[in-house]
């Protein structure tokens, strides 16, 4: 079984998000990825949420050890919300396009 096939078996969101390299057609994806930091340090415990119009929930991943996250969105403008312990939260507006990796760094 290839890594790309493994993503089809479940719907789970691994910490940091699924690597782009395992996507069946990474070049056709509209990828939003980034990192969450506090000062210079990555925030490894927390969650990144992708929200649509009216803050409609779209997807969520736990942050990776490096504070990383990744989404494979539909093209458009989305709100990225980060939740971290201690009630920390931050919102960012992000755009997704097919064939493009949109990068965003979030400080909490």
């Amino acid at each position: 079984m290839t890594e790309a096939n493994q993503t089809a078996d479940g719907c789970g969101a691994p910490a940091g998000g699924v690597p782009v390299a395992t996507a069946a057609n990474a070049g056709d994806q509209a990828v939003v990825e980034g990192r969450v930091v506090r000062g210079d340090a990555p925030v490894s415990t927390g969650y990144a949420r992708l929200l649509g119009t009216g803050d409609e929930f779209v997807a969520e991943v736990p942050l990776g050890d490096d504070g990383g996250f990744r989404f494979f969105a539909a093209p458009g403008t989305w709100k990225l919300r980060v939740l971290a312990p201690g009630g920390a939260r931050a919102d960012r507006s992000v755009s997704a396009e097919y064939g493009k990796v949109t990068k965003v760094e979030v400080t909490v």
Partner: protein
Amino acid sequence: MSRSEALVDAEWVEAHAADPGIVLVEVDEDTSAYDKGHIPNAIKIDWKKDLQDPVRRDFVDRVGFEKLMSARGIAGDDTVVLYGGNNNWFAAYAFWYFKLYGHHNVKLLDGGRKKWELDSRELTTDVPQRPATSYQASEQDATLRAKRDEVLDAIGKRNLVDVRSPDEFTGRLLAPAHLPQEQAQRGGHIPTARNVPWSKAANEDGTFRSDDELRALYVDEAGLDFGKDTIAYCRIGERSAHTWFVLYELLEQPNVKNYDGSWTEYGSLVGVPIELGDAR
């Protein structure tokens, strides 16, 4: 089962996780989170390796479930408390699975791993050792599980609840947005299904919304007829297990089934009707 019987909160788990007769279980697709740190006294179940048949697309059978429970030291009269990541999707799926095999004394930790982490509660890497048991399971309870022919027959007759995101429901995406988008199936939804994303049943911290909010969501907003039987589905059946839990356990609707074949089966069937776009 009511909310008070089906759910426990973090304070309850902190007070009772080590009690005799209580088994705390983390259930995830990716169990690396458990290995890096889990709630004290929790054992783990891997949604894929432990609960799925390794060859066919199906569950492990009754004998396989008995072997799993026995090996993990779970007895038939234990109270099993489940929690996990992904807003308890896989824990809810396991909850449904325990019920399918006749283990009725089972509960979910409200908010799951996410709320526990966001509240900065204790996590450990210590793995508890439990002596093996001789677990006896029942045959699968067919009243809780829908299969494809039943789903086709339910079109226009029963409540069909598609709990995927609106983009998946309308056919714009084939998978949730945290996964790469696959090309192997058709997009869309089962005709007459209403789209009530699982996420609408949960608060931002992963806890379930109140019973009044949930009833308003399904009846007033989505137009479900609670006088009819209901089938919930998603892409592979774990997000819909979350909604099955809400409808069957929290709102105590009597006839709710989870269609675990879900869109990865339905969207690949030849010749079945599919609707695109918003609900009609």
